[in-house]
């Protein structure tokens, strides 16, 4: 799988996570506003509703109409204790709570509950205003925490969140890769299976066509038998290309990195092609720099053979009128330190290709597409890529096509 796909997947994942996060924050705010803010009375509201004044040595407490309304809406009650724990004002207070309060009772309900009623307290001067809510309507909890622990939490939590995000991303990526790998495996097995099933009947077609060609007297039928044989051989090459291309695309082939005598390989390939019976209107020529006789390259012999076969076959197939095919190996002048040293080329003087086709030929491969311009060319590019060779297709002068491979 390409890095580009993984990165785009990651960006999409992060974007989705961000949008979800914003939406969830909005929902939480709405819920909190609706169920929490309207169900309780805050300290600043209490100090606004309640007035405590000292009139002629007597403490007078008043609750505004607005305060009464708010308390009723929240089904809440309110009472005020003076410094001695005596109730000096009460509003809607359950009877069981009307009594004097000791210091320990005050200490208890400021932290916990008052006879199971959740209460909040506000200090006003020397007095304590208590606002209580119905039983089981509010959760109250006292938190005491070590400061060092709290400080540690402030940096551990972001770290944990980060670890979580990375883990989620990693799991998603690995899962996607696993599924993609499985799909690739299935595809490869399918192609191998189909080509396996084609091979046996094709052997019978090829063998019988060859046999007929040899036995029939020269004439129309012998030509037909020859045509069947030729087309069967094309199917054979196609199956082979399909399998090799697929294995190279998904990196599952068993290839060797061996020392290959390239000039000898070029010679034997071209000889084999001529000996197989290349029609007379095709001429082939091998041009090897004298210094490059016995040039050894590292690679897979079978793959290099397939590369040459496909390039030469392409020249033959695309120039039915015949052409002159030159295969060569040249030593290059090194312009830059990293310039490749040797040039392998396959050139023909045939009809060539249009500018548009040339652009397509020179364009990179897209793994997912079966073939942009024939399976043979795709395989040639894959083999070059596998060996880290640079491949170019250019118009040959004065006509035809040239494929140059920098080794």
């Amino acid at each position, binding site marked *: 799988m390409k890095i580009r796909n993984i990165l785009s997947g990651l960006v999409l994942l992060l974007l989705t996570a961000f949008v979800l996060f914003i939406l969830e924050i909005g929902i939480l705010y709405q819920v909190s506003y609706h169920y929490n803010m309207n169900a309780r009375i805050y300290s600043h509201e209490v100090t606004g509703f309640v007035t405590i004044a000292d009139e002629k040595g007597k403490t007078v407490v008043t609750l505004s109409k607005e305060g009464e309304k708010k308390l009723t809406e929240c089904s809440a009650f309110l009472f005020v204790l003076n410094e001695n724990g005596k109730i000096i004002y009460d509003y809607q207070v359950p009877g069981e709570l009307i009594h004097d309060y000791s210091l320990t009772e005050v200490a208890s309900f400021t932290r916990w509950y008052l006879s199971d009623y959740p209460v909040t307290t506000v200090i006003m001067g020397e007095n304590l205003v208590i606002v209580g809510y119905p039983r089981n309507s509010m959760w109250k909890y006292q938190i005491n925490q070590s400061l060092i622990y709290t400080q540690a939490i402030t940096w551990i939590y972001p770290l944990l969140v980060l670890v979580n995000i990375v883990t989620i991303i990693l799991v998603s990526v690995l899962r996607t890769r696993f599924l993609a790998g499985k799909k690739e495996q299935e595809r490869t097995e399918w192609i191998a299976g189909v080509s396996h099933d084609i091979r046996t009947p094709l*052997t019978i077609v090829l063998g019988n066509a060859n046999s007929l060609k040899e036995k029939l007297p020269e004439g129309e039928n012998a030509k037909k038998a020859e045509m069947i044989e030729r087309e069967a051989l094309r199917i054979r090459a196609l199956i082979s290309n399909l399998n090799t291309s697929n294995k190279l695309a998904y990196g599952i082939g068993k290839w060797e990195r061996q020392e290959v005598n390239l000039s000898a390989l070029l*010679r034997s390939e071209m000889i084999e092609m001529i000996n197989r019976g290349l029609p007379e209107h095709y001429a082939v020529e091998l041009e090897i720099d004298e210094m490059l006789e016995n040039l050894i390259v590292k690679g897979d012999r079978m793959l290099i053979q397939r590369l040459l076969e496909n390039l030469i076959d392409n020249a033959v197939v695309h120039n039915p009128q015949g052409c002159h095919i030159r295969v060569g190996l040249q030593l290059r002048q090194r312009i830059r330190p990293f310039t490749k040293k040797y040039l392998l080329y396959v050139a023909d003087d045939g009809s060539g290709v249009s500018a548009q086709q040339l652009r397509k030929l020179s364009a990179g491969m897209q793994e997912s597409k079966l073939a942009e311009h024939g399976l043979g060319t795709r395989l040639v590019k894959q083999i070059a890529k596998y060996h880290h060779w640079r491949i170019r297709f250019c118009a040959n002068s004065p006509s035809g096509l040239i494929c140059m491979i920098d080794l």
Partner: protein
Amino acid sequence: MKISDCHILLVDDEKNLLYMVRDLLKEEGYSAVDTAVSCKEAEKKLTENQYALVILDVMLPDGNGFSFFQEQIREKDYSGIPVIFLSARDENEAKLKGLGLGADDYITKPFLPQELMLRVKAVLMRTYRLEEIQQDLQLQNVMIRFDDSTIIRDGKVQTMTAKEYMLLRKLAENKGKIVSIDSLCDTLWPDGSYGLESSLMVHIRHIREKIEADPSRPEHLITMRGLGYKLC
């Protein structure tokens, strides 16, 4: 033993292919060719006859050709029989697996009849150290006689050197076809022929002096520039 006397067992479950290959082998001169469509039948045939070669398909209805090869041929009394695998599997894998097990050769389906015949012949000759009798070669007014290493041109008898004999034999075996420089060098110097191309050219020149009317304009031993030589 003559190569045509070799008794061959052909094992493949596809009957059309089996009969086609059997007929091709018979046409090629192999008079005794038996067929079997399963491991069981092949096992029975092996006990009944003495075979010189087994051509074995990898996928058989009652077993795997690789296992059959290991269990019924290599580990039994037939371990001396050479085996060529026929495989519809991918080339590389069949090659690695088959040859790794000790098979003598493999051929991937689909194949041309000539490809199979060449391999059959090569395996039989290698295993039984058979020498193919090279027929004398007539090239217009030139007669190349391998039995007494002579070249007769226009009634004039000339002898061949050992290297010339080897070269002419290789070229005669591939008459009308190009033989690469590398292959000719390997024939002359099997222990290593690096840098001996110029010596090869000397031997070629000497042969031309014996077989060509005008060695500078050869008509029988043709140079295929950059590739090799062709005898025609």
